[in-house]
């Protein structure tokens, strides 16, 4: 007799834990052949708010970690993903990818995470400036993490899209609330398990599944979310952009082929940063100069 397979229960990820949606609802996305992918949490606006609270709580200590330490942790995500490659490949196949496509997507995701791990302790050196002001002041501008970032995972991919938007947002010390691809949500939740075992502190990334229509406007309007990043949203674009106005959320839409090697870079990180300029007087007494 064949063994009865243990099916996975896909839950959401908030504050480092895997609760079910508070609404108790589920939905069953189908793959292109019409097979059910599983029963996914149909998260509610209340789940969005809970996730934002968790993300805000995690922001202080995550943003104050050393850049080196964040780099180590992001690299650890890649290590964990590498170890669970087969699981992601089979999930991608279940969601409609061919074996070759699935392998390519997972490998690119791992490499992209390593790429951003390396940026953690470098972007500020590349982007900062000492500004030669005319008065007797030392003046410099450096980037700081922005806060809580709302991330709408690209819809057409299950893994590489979310990695491409999420990792540059968090590698600089931001925390995130991510809404998974509505029709291809499986890898998002399995990726949460990877994060959970990678020393990424609970609350740094929070992942919800459900419908875009229900979740995206609430996340875009939330007064404690600092930025909202996504693909271009088509007919939803204006509504989402207007929802983001009340706390002057920074909003970025990226049009890119996420499966391209080129769809990564420094500016995905810097968009979700704030530039801070600091002035301090230079004591200038007496007439001595630095000439030898």
């Amino acid at each position, binding site marked *: 007799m064949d063994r009865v397979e243990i099916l996975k229960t896909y839950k959401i990820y908030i504050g480092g834990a895997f609760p079910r949606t508070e609404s108790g609802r589920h939905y069953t996305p189908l793959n292109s052949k019409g097979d059910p992918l599983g029963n996914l949490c149909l998260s509610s606006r209340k789940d969005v708010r809970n996730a934002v609270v968790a993300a805000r709580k995690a922001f202080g200590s995550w943003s104050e970690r050393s850049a080196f330490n964040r780099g180590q942790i992001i690299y650890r995500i890649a290590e964990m993903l590498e170890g669970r490659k087969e699981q992601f490949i089979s999930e991608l196949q279940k969601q409609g990818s061919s074996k070759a496509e699935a392998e390519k997507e997972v490998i690119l995701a791992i490499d992209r995470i390593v790429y951003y791990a390396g940026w953690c302790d470098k972007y500020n050196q*590349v982007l900062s*400036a000492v*500004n*030669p*002001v*005319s*008065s007797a*002041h030392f*003046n410099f*501008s450096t980037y*700081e993490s*922005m806060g809580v970032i709302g991330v709408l995972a690209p819809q057409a991919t299950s893994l590489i899209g979310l990695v491409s938007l999420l990792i540059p947002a968090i590698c600089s010390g931001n925390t995130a609330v991510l809404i998974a691809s509505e029709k291809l949500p499986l890898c998002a939740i399995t990726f949460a398990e990877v994060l959970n075992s990678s020393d990424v502190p609970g609350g740094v990334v929070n992942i919800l599944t459900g419908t875009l229509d229900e979740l995206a406007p609430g996340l875009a309007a939330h007064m404690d979310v*600092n930025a909202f990043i996504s693909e271009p949203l088509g007919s939803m*674009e*204006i509504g989402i*952009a*207007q929802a*983001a*106005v*009340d*706390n*002057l959320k*920074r909003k970025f839409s*990226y049009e*890119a082929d996420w499966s391209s090697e080129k769809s990564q*870079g*420094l*500016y*995905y990180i810097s968009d979700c940063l*704030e*530039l*801070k*300029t*600091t*002035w*301090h*007087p230079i004591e200038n007494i007496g007439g001595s100069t630095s000439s030898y």
Partner: protein
Amino acid sequence: MAKKKPGKEGVNWDYSPSLESTSHITILPKYELFINNEWVKPSSKKYFKTTNPANEDVLSEIAWANDYDVDLAVKAARNAYNDVWSKTTPKERSKYIYRIARLMQEHARELSVIETLDAGKPIRESRDIDVPLACNHFFYYAGWADKLEYAFPNQPMEALGVAGQIIPWNFPLLMAAWKIAPALAAGNCVVLKPAETTSLTALKLAEIIKASGLPPGVVNIITGHGDTGAAIVNHPDINKIAFTGSTNVGKIIQRAIAGTGKKATLELGGKSANIIFDDAPIDQAVEGIVNGIFFNQGHVCCAGSRLFVQENIAELVIRKLKHRMDSLYLGNPLDKNTDIGAINSKEQLETIEKYIKIGISEGAEIYQSTCELPGKGYFCRPTIFTNVAQSSRISQEEIFGPVLSIQTFRTVDEVIQKANNSPYGLAAGVWTDKGSRIFNLTSKLRAGVIWANTYNKFDPTSPFGGYKESGFGREGGLHGLGAYLKMKL
């Protein structure tokens, strides 16, 4: 100059008035719109008066642009962009901007006097701060025009096209420079609208731009009220909106351009914290408090309008602050002795007076300078409130006038929390002799500009702009260029 009462000793220490001459300036009785390097009558046929807020005299009549005029200006900018400016080499672009900078320097005195007449700010400030900084801004960005590829590593980019720029009345010429100089350096054409109470120096700048030989249509300066600004924001052929002003209007703009693909930089309001620790050099800190809140009559988006004093020195600091306030000269802005000039407009004076009443009714303790007010014009005494609650409206809302709310604190953690407890995040000041504490605070204060042991310093090379609801994007410095470039990533 309003005379001060003799001091307790019975000796009158007043300076003799030292008025800047207005003889060498030209203000036309009427100004038209500056489109395509020509002076164009507004199709609205309407004009509005601009007055000197220090004596309520009418200075000139200014054209009021309507939708049609805005469209004309945008078309001029678009044609100039397509036919001329986008084909001008960066090197030549650079030289045009240098020319504007030099011509502005040559007109510095005229620009300062007109700025003081039209805006009410003390001549010392327009002469020593506004106008030189405005010139220097053009100088700084002129040199960037042919070096853009060094600004953002590995980033292919191009100009945006036509930028619509709307500026406020607190630093009229300086804000025009902040907007126009980087836009031109990055290769854009512009349509700029000055604030309705302070159009004159922007129109003088238009004369300078015409004299510089800049190709027609590259810079268009159109005047008017809020409806003119709205027509710019909503014009479909504008690629970028740059706005400096209130957070409320900033949100209206962001809502209006949602989903249009227009890029925006918003430099909005603030309620910036100025924090004094007990080891700070007290006399310097008191000067910093005065400079933070009374500079330009407090019409400064980054004004240090929330003072946090460590509890054990609060009494001393407040006593010295009151003493210093009593020695500030309030009066004719053209007098070189004047520290505090006129409030920019009657409307703004009413807003400030409303907030002073709110402060009193909320139970805060008020102290105002003892100076007399001139009989005419819009003036407001330097004002401080003590015993202010964190939840008080005068410590939460931007007043944009010479009104300071003072709170005390005991620990570093407490003051960080209080300072960050604001929807704004434009600037902050920290006064302490301890370097490690400065770096602790400057990295934890959520604001775009931090002044440590100084306040209200500006420079063309120094990026300026806020966190949170103080807006987004930066102006000034290398980073200010990014606001006017399309990054291809």
